């Protein structure tokens, strides 16, 4: 990080109104707090333009002369929301903040030099001799440029000759990028350490969980230990890198609002229209507008999880060597703290966040969390009551509590579940978590079992009741726990059925290679 500041120019049109322009071209230190995209759900981060945002806090040291000065900030993230910028540390505060978006560009130059003198250069293709000529821009940049020379009026580049314009300088109100500046006043020349805080789009993060299920305990049915590991995956879709940044991520749902209309950048290429300069047969009778076909979107970059899965596939090649693989060993783990009703994850060491880059830091390392393996189904589909044998869902249920091996805030994110096999750990299921607070239940449906199946059969029906049968078959060589949810009002009080959160639920253990059957009756509404 360098603290480079340059006093670019001071102009003193009149003694009373000297205004110095100070350019601060890079921050000395930067903090980056990344917020997740809202409503992204289970979809991965878009690496080309991440839809979350970040709060960026920079410190910059500048020399301020006495009097009024304009401080221009360069090297900020291009997704900056200028209305969110806060500048503190100036001796007499900020009089006004400006974000200027008149861009230094071919059309911007013509616009700025309209009715002013430029130099027109024409190079003779045969001799290579360049002829200079003074010209005044009479019209432009919309629809072409008309120049007035000593000979008369002509249109720029409608002649077929190599022509270009030279401008006397850079108009001071044009800038290479939309630029934030503040106007401040100081009684004396001084050095100030400024803090610039702003929000910017083009960032995102999410938690990516890697869960390793350990073999179950023979004595307790369906009890599993899971090594839970989570990456904090952060993406910067902008063109600005952040060197040695304090990096943080916020979990939770801060409210965001639609932004009001913004000042639109002006400038761009110079589109020169002429009277027809082609040969006659090329002249389109109605030229119309030519719309550039946008380039096809770049193929999505592979997400980090895919790379991770690849590594595991490599592991399978040396299957004998690694029958069991532990979760990744993390040397640096993000610290978690509370921020009001949000959760803040702080990367303990400064890191560099590259432009158009994705970064992963460990955020959760919890080996040996206790989970129950349960086979579940919710029998609420009328079309499936014909006795068809359907696979049941595999559910891992835990609780986010210390005594269960967890007890920490768990931000939402996808979960990859690995189980050990003869060939090393293999991907055994995928799921996703929503934000889980301490004390919340954690349920991950990781797949469906072809070994544990259920069938619903409608046995009889009268105007008052429907009688159903649920058969469960277990083809596994170990007993399994099953839960069947029946989200209807039941007749009577069947003794094997208890209400869980208002939903009648049958909980049972099916013996190894065994079967079980439940009968129940639904109450029908009399009209």
């Amino acid at each position, binding site marked *: 990080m360098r603290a480079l500041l340059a006093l670019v120019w001071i102009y003193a049109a009149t003694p009373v109104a000297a205004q110095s322009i100070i350019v601060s071209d890079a921050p000395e230190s930067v903090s980056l707090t990344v917020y997740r995209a809202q409503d992204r759900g289970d979809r991965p981060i878009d690496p080309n333009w991440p839809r979350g945002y970040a709060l960026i806090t920079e410190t910059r040291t500048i020399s301020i002369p006495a009097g009024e000065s304009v401080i221009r900030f360069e090297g900020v993230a291009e997704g900056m929301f200028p209305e969110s910028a806060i500048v503190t540390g100036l001796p007499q505060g900020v009089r006004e903040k400006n974000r200027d978006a008149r861009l230094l560009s071919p059309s911007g130059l013509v616009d700025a030099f309209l009715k002013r003198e430029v130099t027109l250069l024409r190079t003779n293709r045969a001799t290579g001799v360049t002829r200079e000529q003074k010209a005044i821009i009479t019209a432009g940049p919309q629809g072409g440029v008309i120049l007035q020379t000593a000979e*008369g009026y002509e249109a720029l580049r409608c002649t077929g000759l190599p022509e270009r314009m030279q401008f006397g300088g850079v108009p001071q109100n044009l800038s290479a990028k939309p630029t934030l500046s503040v106007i401040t006043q100081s009684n004396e020349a001084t050095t100030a350490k400024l803090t610039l805080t702003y929000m910017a789009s083009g960032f995102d993060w999410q938690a990516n969980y890697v869960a390793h299920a350990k073999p179950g305990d023979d004595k307790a049915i369906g009890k599993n230990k899971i090594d839970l590991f989570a990456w904090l995956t952060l993406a910067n879709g902008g063109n600005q890198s952040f060197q040695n940044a304090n990096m943080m991520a916020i*979990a939770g749902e801060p409210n965001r609002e639609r932004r009001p209309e913004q000042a639109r950048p002006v400038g761009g290429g110079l589109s020169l229209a002429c009277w027809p300069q082609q040969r006659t047969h090329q002249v389109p009778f109605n030229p119309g507008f030519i719309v550039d076909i946008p380039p096809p979107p770049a193929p999505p970059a592979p997400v980090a999880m895919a790379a991770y899965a690849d590594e595991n596939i490599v592991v399978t090649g040396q299957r004998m060597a690694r029958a069991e693989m532990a979760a990744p060993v993390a040397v640096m783990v993000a610290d978690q703290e509370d921020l009001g009703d949000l959760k803040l994850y702080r990367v303990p060491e400064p890191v560099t966040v590259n432009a158009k880059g994705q970064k992963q830091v460990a955020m959760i390392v919890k080996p040996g969390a206790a989970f129950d393996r349960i086979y579940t189904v919710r029998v609420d589909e009328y079309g499936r009551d014909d006795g068809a044998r359907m696979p049941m869902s595999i559910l891992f249920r835990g609780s986010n509590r210390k005594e269960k091996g967890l007890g920490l805030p768990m931000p939402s994110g996808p979960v990859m579940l690995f189980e050990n096999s003869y060939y090393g750990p293999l991907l055994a299921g995928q799921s996703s978590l929503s934000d889980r607070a301490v004390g919340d239940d954690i349920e991950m449906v990781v797949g469906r079992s072809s070994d544990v199946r259920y069938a619903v059969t409608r046995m009889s029906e009268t105007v008052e009741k429907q009688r159903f049968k649920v058969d469960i078959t277990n083809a596994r060589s170990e007993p399994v726990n099953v839960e069947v949810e029946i989200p209807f009002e039941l007749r009577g009080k069947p003794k094997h059925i208890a209400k869980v959160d208002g939903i009648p639920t049958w909980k049972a253990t099916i013996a190894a290679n065994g079967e079980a059957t439940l009968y129940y009756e639904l109450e029908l509404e009399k009209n």
Partner: protein
Amino acid sequence: MRAAWLLLAGGALAAPILAQDATSVAVPGGATAQGDVAVTIYQNGQSLIQDTRRLTMPAGRSKQEFPDVSAQIRAETVTLTGPGIGIVEQNFDYDLLTPAKLMEKAVGQNVTLIRTNPATGAEVRVPAKVLAANGGVVLQVGNTIEVLRDDGLPVRVIFDKVPPNLRARPTLSVTLEAKGGVTPTTLTYLTPGLGWNSDYVTLFDDAKQTIDVQGWVTLTNNTGTDYSNANVLLVAGNPNGGGGRRNYTTPWNPSTGTIDQPGTESSNRERLGDYYLYPLAERTTIANAQQKQVSFLDVKAAPARKAYEFNNGWLATNDAASASSVLKFSTSRSGGLGDQLPAGTMRVYMRDKRGDPQFIGESMIEATPMGSAMSIRTGDAFDVKVKTVVEERNRLSSSRWQTKMRYEFTNARNEPVTVDLGQEGLWGDVAIIAQSQEGKRVSADRVEWSVAVPANGKATLTATFDSRY
């Protein structure tokens, strides 16, 4: 800025000089034909520009052009006033000068062609007459008829003049009768493309239960024109006919729901009818494509408190969902921000463990009178959740049902919280026949309970509703 200062210094438009540049080139960007400009910006996309220029006019009838007016000027709203001035007519010409237009208007006229020999570079001047410009340009050169550049060789076309009614920019011109001499004339017009909003920076201190609020007016200029050294006046409100007597809340005119109780206090800010005025303290230049922010409010340590709210729309079983985090404060003179707040966006920050401010959420607020009780929803609480369970549903008759609801509150924070639970969808005819704690029927449709949830604990509320369905 600079150009404006120059005007103040006596109107001498010296070309500014780059101090670092030895060759001293003239760089544009400053000179403007505008005079003493006053810009009044409303919040409905209209702005009023008043521009007083000192014009030197001949006695009698003359045509005066007014460059540097808004590129989006609503020409029909232009008014020109000044001592001894009578208006004959006003014209707004937007036929722009382009190469194609120049050629079209040159039909029937003589131009000069300069042909360049590609092998030698030698130039030959030929007079020609433009006969037509339909797709290609048909010329008469001597006694021959040909099409311009049909051979693809370089030809310069030199025009003697440009047509008088074609301009580089849309131009306002006024034909008037004057007594002559230097006359101060005031040009007044409306233009779209300027707008303003407010942005509030709110720093919440959870330990002290206070907020520091800074208010900034944020104005944007998309008119295509700079307004130099202008007096700027912002009008908080939307003078746009209103909605008659009925006042709908519509998607394009929404209520932000941030005012709990509208205030009845008045501040000593200037007013225009029912609208508040925010004059900027100093003259400023509003450049095109610029967003400008100027501070108008700075309050330290106003009392504020955090609260939790949860709304349940209908009697249904739902998984645990986060309660909203809400910040409550007042705009009252005593114990509040002590000002009315123009509509805008309030961003709330909180200090992390290292003391650095972090963003915790934002909310739109509508124009809020002084003395109002406000609640700003900043986001969803990670640790405070509500689960709703339909525990029992009993049918008493074909048009009478009893629904027993259980609301489970969980709090993973290490401090007790109170959640304001609102149950909606009661339609006026739903009765509450049992409840584990007394609620408040705030309207026919809605009942509210304040439920205390212990630190790292749970709380349960049950209520039985008697309804027709």
